[in-house]
């Protein structure tokens, strides 16, 4: 009976985390299309519901009622597993995101490593989908995406080391609390810029959306997918983007901390601050999508390996020497 109680409590918590995440993923798709449209002086989706807010709901309904087509020469098990893997990985990472000092599903010691591990597993959904389709375009897209995500993970890892040097802990709440006096975006500003660009590449967003470059590869790894399976890829992708925004705001923008600790601001619940920061980063993502042309593939690789990796490594050495010289290393 005691076990059942614990299980029930945890399920309750998980549902209350996942339902808002899924709803906000649907809303964020609408926001993305709206921002994109406004940059190009269009209206964007504005018909379904007030301001077109229910557009994603209508889309989801359409996807549910469409037929799921499984190519006869595909590897069926892996073909079906791929969108499930993408979706699951995008959702399990939210377990460690702290919405306030106490509101966190799993306050584990190695939170940032968990986030990094889950985001590095994200490549499997894409590579499985591309290979199992047994078709040229999806396979090319999958290979492109695997190489791209593995490359940019390296620089994200080194950037995380930079932040960890200043914090002295792998716990996400400790990382947020360490930014009480100054957000890490100020001393580590170049790292924030590199993190943002690497996050774009890691989530296959424009200008690095080569895995699904529609002019060359039809739709990349998603070419053979239809109906709900396509929608799951799509939801997983946007949940991953939101996750990257959350990671950026925890590492650099002070997470759930309010910007200034004075009267009207510290009354606002800390979860609201985190959501506002995630939204700010997401609008930047959407703007980049609207204003930047697509990268060439060799340039993408050059940027990752020859520019970002050396730069972030040099910055690790600089941060470590600075902290060591001024005796600021966080030792406990």
């Amino acid at each position: 009976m005691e076990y059942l109680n614990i299980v029930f409590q945890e399920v309750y918590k998980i549902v209350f985390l996942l339902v808002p995440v899924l709803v906000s993923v649907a809303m964020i798709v609408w926001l993305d299309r709206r921002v994109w449209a406004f940059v190009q002086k269009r209206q964007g989706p504005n018909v379904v519901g007030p301001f077109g807010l229910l557009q994603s709901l209508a889309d989801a309904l359409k996807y549910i009622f469409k037929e799921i087509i499984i190519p006869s020469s595909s590897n069926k098990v892996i073909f079906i597993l791929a969108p499930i893997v993408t979706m699951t990985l995008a959702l399990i990472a939210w377990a460690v995101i702290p919405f306030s000092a106490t509101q966190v599903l799993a306050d584990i010691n190695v939170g940032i490593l968990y986030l990094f591990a889950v985001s590095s597993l994200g490549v499997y959904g894409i590579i499985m989908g591309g290979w199992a389709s047994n078709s040229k375009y999806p396979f090319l897209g999958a290979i492109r995406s695997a190489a791209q995500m593995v490359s940019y993970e390296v620089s994200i890892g080194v950037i995380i080391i930079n932040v960890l040097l200043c914090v002295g802990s792998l716990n996400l709440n400790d990382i947020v609390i360490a930014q009480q006096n100054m957000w890490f975006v100020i001393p580590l500003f170049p790292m924030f810029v590199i993190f943002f660009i690497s996050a774009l590449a890691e989530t296959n967003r424009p200008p690095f959306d080569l895995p699904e470059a529609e002019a060359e590869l039809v739709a990349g790894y998603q070419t053979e997918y239809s109906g709900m399976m396509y929608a799951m890829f799509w939801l997983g992708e946007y949940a991953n983007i939101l996750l990257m925004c959350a990671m950026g705001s925890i590492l650099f923008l002070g997470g759930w901390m309010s910007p200034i600790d004075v009267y009207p601001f510290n009354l606002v619940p800390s979860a609201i601050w985190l959501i506002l920061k995630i939204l700010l980063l997401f609008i930047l993502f959407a703007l980049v999508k609207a204003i930047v042309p697509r990268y060439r593939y060799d340039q993408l690789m050059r940027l990752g390996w020859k520019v970002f990796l050396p730069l972030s490594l040099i910055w690790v050495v600089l941060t470590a020497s600075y902290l060591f010289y001024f005796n600021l290393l966080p030792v406990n």
Partner: protein
Amino acid sequence: MFAHAIFFYTFSIIAVVSAIMVTASKNTVHSVFFLILDFISISCLFIMIGAEFLGMIMLIVYVGAVAVLFLFVVMMLNVAQQKNQWFAGQQSSKHIPVGIIISTLIFVEVIIVIGGWKYKPEIFDINNSIAQTSISNTHSLGQILYTDYIHVFQISGMILLVAMVGAIVLTFRQRSGVKRQSYIKQISRERTEGVEVLEVQSNKGVKIDD
């Protein structure tokens, strides 16, 4: 304790079964996916015994990077056919005796280590090196790795570096006749050097490339 046992046996059964399936499955890509499943369940076991840092590093390094490259190679090279021939017994493999010898050696080594651990615990200094204190797993690992074993740590890093340089040197070849793209040249092109206005006489034309 009961729930702990359930989880332990679930993960270990998954790990053992998927390890067997790595060698038993006929499709090589399936083998790699079983290998990934094996890595994941082993990292779950690591987390269950409280070594959360090792478990996460296992996920990041092996599943996130090594297995992706594995999958890459297996998907690109068509090794499936060769493996099928072994299964069908059309072609006898010369690797099987070597494999048996190596696996017997590993088995004997594991038996020695586990037997020694069980019956002569005093030769293994494990209980003293990882002190059972309140500091976290990551901290204690760092304190040992970067103080007592710093030289071993750095030597292993050097070995990895040498392996990487060696692999690059072995496969690197200077190819002639390759058109290289210099991005500095490409972005620093001006309109004046890119476009030229020519006076074309009729019936004569102009020679454009020289």
